[in-house]
């Protein structure tokens, strides 16, 4: 029978087949192209965030006023410190990962195990920190008044320090009451109520001369506009329709609801990447322990997951810049 081997005349040439022109294994190259496409996905999200921000450039929330918490420092205004800590955790876990890859090149199993373990621990700390950051953001701190146009009005005192609606509100008897289990025969869930109604906050505002309204409008110097006492009262009475506490996909006490939407979506998507990265790292970690790569004679698998792990760090560097710094 005649041989059906196709001769193309390219045998022995770089792209003639049978060799690796890019000097990278199939798996590693595909990991690079996956990373490329994932990078484009993240860029799409971040560019969409930039689009919405440019659309509302003069009323976008200022990150320094939003993320101000640090564990065990209650009531202390500490912008950026916590997220800087998270960034360091992720950079450091990248370092231990690259050290694991390096140890793999020399077939040092025990070192690979140690460094991979540290990387996994770093990943868990980061995911935990992100959960904490989300909790604070969802819970909110000071609360705000919602306007008809969907904006929020916050309260500040004479020094420009934020005033919480919980300190401002005056309980009016017979106001909002939460529907409770004991009052209903068929009770599923009650409607969630705010700590104070708009009416109660208004009463408190009128009684307190040293409180002003801070609007979302950015001034030239990068701070928000604070209204005079008279303007404040006028604006509250004309536009106030309700109370916002915390942030979710519809309302955001810190400003534009879009800010909260993008925050949840982008950091959530990144957190999901970190989580799956940790899971993949754990699988590889156990493979290293049972000696799979020792028998295979190469730790290239560690290199491939390392590429993914570094990519997660790379994305965070950009998320950090565009959500917290710029």
């Amino acid at each position, binding site marked *: 029978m005649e041989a059906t081997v196709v001769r193309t005349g390219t045998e022995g040439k770089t792209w003639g087949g049978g060799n690796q*022109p*890019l*000097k*990278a294994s199939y798996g590693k*190259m595909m990991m*690079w*192209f996956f*990373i*490329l496409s994932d*990078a*484009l996905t993240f*860029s*799409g999200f971040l*560019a*969409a965030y*930039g*689009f*919405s*921000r*440019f*659309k509302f*450039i*003069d009323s976008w929330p200022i990150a*320094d006023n939003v993320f101000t918490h640090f564990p065990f420092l209650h009531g202390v205004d500490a*912008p*950026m*410190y916590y997220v*800087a800590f998270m*960034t*360091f955790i992720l*950079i*450091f876990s*990248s*370092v231990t*990962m*690259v*050290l694991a*890859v*390096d140890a793999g*090149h*020399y077939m040092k199993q025990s070192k690979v195990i140690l460094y991979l373990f540290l990387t996994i621990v770093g990943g868990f700390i980061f995911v935990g920190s992100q959960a904490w950051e989300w909790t604070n953001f969802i819970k909110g701190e000071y609360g705000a008044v919602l306007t*008809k*146009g969907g904006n929020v009005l916050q309260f500040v005192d004479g020094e420009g320090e934020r005033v919480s609606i919980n300190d401002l509100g005056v309980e009016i008897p017979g106001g909002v009451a939460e529907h409770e289990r004991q009052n209903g025969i068929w009770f599923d869930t009650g409607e969630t109520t705010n700590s104070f109604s708009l009416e109660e906050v208004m009463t408190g505002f009128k009684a307190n001369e040293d409180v002003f309204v801070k609007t979302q409008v950015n001034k*030239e*110097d*990068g701070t928000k506009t604070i209204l005079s006492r008279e303007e404040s009262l006028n604006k509250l009475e004309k536009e106030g329709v309700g109370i916002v506490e915390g942030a979710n996909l519809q309302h955001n006490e810190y400003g534009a609801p879009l800010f909260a939407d993008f925050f949840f979506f982008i950091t959530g998507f990144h957190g999901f990447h970190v989580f799956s990265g940790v899971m993949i790292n754990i699988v590889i970690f156990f493979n290293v322990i049972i000696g799979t790569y020792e028998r295979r004679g190469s730790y290239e698998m560690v*290199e491939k997951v*390392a*590429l993914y792990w*570094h*990519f997660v*760090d*790379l994305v965070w*560097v*950009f998320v*950090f*810049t565009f959500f*917290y*710094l*710029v």
Partner: protein
Amino acid sequence: MAHDTTTGHHESAVKRIWTVFAILSVVTIVEVALGIIRPAFLEHTSFLAMKLLNWIFIILTLYKAYYITWAFMHMEHETKGLRRAVVWTALFLITYLIFILLTEGDYIYEVYKNGQVAWDF
């Protein structure tokens, strides 16, 4: 890339990792410090439709991204072909996307601001 098994090469690779870690840490600390202090002259100087401070943040971020990709992800050891296939593709598409979306966003801002329809009622 060929893996040298001599210890000399190994030590220099580990040394490079720690050097890069130091660079990334210093850049992050600078970013955070600038973010907290927000020097007035950087905040008020505008360059190409953006605050100078924001340009500094973005440039420092790209500097960090370069080190993560080149040193940690070993892009510096890959062949020219693979490197360009990944990096140039990403750079071109991302720059283009950012350009069109930000231009469009700014246009809509102008419409909201100067248009006849009130959106904050």
